[in-house]
């Protein structure tokens, strides 16, 4: 089942001195349950592409359909609400809320969704157990390693029951063991719960795990391989 469809996507950044054409006419679609890596050199436009698919950035031209909804037509407040309900994000720098514990970080998005306290509590604990942090639920981010923080970020991304998860270079700040551990967790979630993951990455280990690899260079898709 197709959950994302991107047609003729362009993004041009207009600064006062230079005009940067970051994405130049991408046409792609993603199915439910994919485990896809979007790769390419720095500045190739992969992060911009992911940001537009996540509704964080507006395309200059082209359309993005998620579950048949053209997100470019959504107003800012609707788009925020859409992101909350449909898209999970994992960032390179984890971006956890430092004053909250691991469990509270995971609970926060469910609070925004208006879920009950009991549901939030049970789901946060269950997700943290799934990512192997059942014993660190009350730890604050500064008491966790980089890998553990990124696993909390994955649990947070899953908490809202999104249609897919966008992960922007999720392993860039992690050592080998943490990377392997995180990838195993995400792969298991993908296989066992059919959760769709789309990564932007340079990391060969991520590429190796991915079942589909989309390569972007100079804002264009130069290859799209399914293993």
């Amino acid at each position, binding site marked *: 089942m197709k959950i994302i469809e991107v047609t003729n996507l362009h993004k041009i950044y207009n600064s006062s001195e230079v005009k940067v054409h970051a994405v130049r006419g991408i046409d792609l679609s993603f199915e439910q349950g994919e485990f896809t890596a979007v790769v390419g050199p720095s500045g190739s436009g992969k*992060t911009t592409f992911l*940001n537009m698919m*996540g509704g*964080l*950035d507006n395309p200059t031209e082209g359309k993005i359909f998620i579950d048949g909804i053209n997100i470019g037509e959504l107003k*800012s*407040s609707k788009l*925020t*609400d859409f*992101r*909350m*309900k449909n898209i999970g*994000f994992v*960032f390179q*720098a984890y*971006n956890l*809320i*430092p*004053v*909250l514990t691991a469990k*509270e970080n995971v*609970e*926060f*998005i469910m*609070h*925004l*969704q208006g879920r009950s306290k009991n549901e939030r509590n049970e789901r946060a604990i269950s997700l943290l157990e799934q990512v192997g942090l059942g014993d660190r639920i009350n730890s604050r981010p500064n008491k966790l390693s980089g890998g553990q923080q990124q696993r909390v970020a994955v649990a*947070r991304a899953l908490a*809202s029951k999104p249609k897919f998860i966008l992960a*922007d270079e999720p392993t860039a700040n992690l050592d080998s063991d943490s990377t392997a551990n995180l990838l195993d967790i995400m792969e298991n979630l993908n296989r066992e719960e059919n959760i769709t993951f789309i990564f932007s990455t340079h990391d060969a280990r991520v590429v190796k795990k991915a079942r589909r690899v989309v390569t972007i260079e100079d804002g264009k898709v130069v290859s799209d391989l399914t293993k």
Partner: protein
Amino acid sequence: MLISVAWKNVWRNKLRSLVVIFAVMIGLLAGSFGVALMEGVAKKRAKSAIHNEISHIQIHHPKFQENFEAKFNIKSADELISEIYKDPEVVAITSRMVVSGMINTSGGNTGAFIYGIDPETEKQVTDIHTYIKDSIGNYFENDKRNQILISETTAKKLKLDRYKLSQKTINALLSAAFPVKDTIALYSILDKQFRSQKNYFDKLRELINPDLVEEFQFIFIKYSILFKERAKIVINLQDYNGQITGDKFRVTGIYKTSNRMFDEKTVFVNKKDLAALTGYNESKPHEIAVLLEDRSTAKNYAEVLREKYPDLKIESWGEIDPMVIMIAEYLEIFNYFLIAFILAALAFGIVNTMLMAIMERTKELGMLAAIGMNRKRIFSMIMLETIFLTIVGAVVGLVVNYGIISYLSEKGIDLTKQMGEAFEAIGYDTMIYPEMGLNYYIGITLLVIFAAILSSVYPALKAIKLNPADAVRTDA
């Protein structure tokens, strides 16, 4: 959860938050203590005006106060008094004869209003009997003829003042930081009496540095002054027939209120003696003073009496001395302006702190927007953080202020040395008991909340304007 996150965010950078909280605390403490001081001064003045000078309601013949002519008295005063007394709102009533005249001694003379009072009922209405200086006589003694109660100011004019440097004077000087070494010289005139202030001060200037005498002048007078006991005074005035008459009176006591203007022009004698001297009828007084249960009801009650007794001039304390009310109202406005200005200055610091906090958290705020926290919630979170930051400082400031006021409202602040003469000249007590009513606590809290909301708007707007894509990309 938003409230909990906002509260936790306040303590993210403890030092920075504490600096702001401390600034708000000090600012509000200073402001609210200033308010309490001014309230204390205004209330003390109102209290002293009511309990020493005016009472809650005064009744006169409509023409009496034009020229204070003794013929304009109140007919059927006894019936009127017993009628008013029936009202449960009325606590006490006294009637007075008021005649202007001259009072003389061999040393001097002065003009004054001679109040013929009933010592017992007067005691129930005014507090003059409590202002008789220690060991300088008594309130009226029973059955003695021609007693007179004069003020310290009048006594000085009549040259009845004497000066004796006592141990009490030296103790007062020392507690006001008078140099210890200079007190040694003063012991040479310990307990020696001087007949005039001039002689006393000449001697002091011989013994110690004249600048010190000047600096501590008020204490030297306040704690050394004595008065000639039971001095004889002659009162001259016009009698019922317009003839000048006079008689000898003996000073029974010397009083001193905080209002020098009142003290200068007022002496008290027994109504019977004044009636006998002037030939006026004791039962037809010139003034009836009424004390009520609650001063705030005086205006309405005066209105009721005016309707009932249209032939008399009936005024409440606020109508007799509108300055008291005007000053209280002016001070209230001034107090709120003072607090508002302090908060406005603090608001800049709060805005700056919150902007710094937002700059530091750009990435986090971007992440929150990315995962679906809408602008309204981000705005509310920043607003809550600002309000918490401000309110914590305000609460601490107001609690500390409450503690200080509670202590000082019992103990008082003695400004005798610094402001003594100036305060007395305008009718204000030099002993200030700061107080701050609940209305101010509520008013200041509302102002603080308003200032906090106002301070939060700009940083919160900045926060919601962040583009989540740019924010999560930033290096901050």
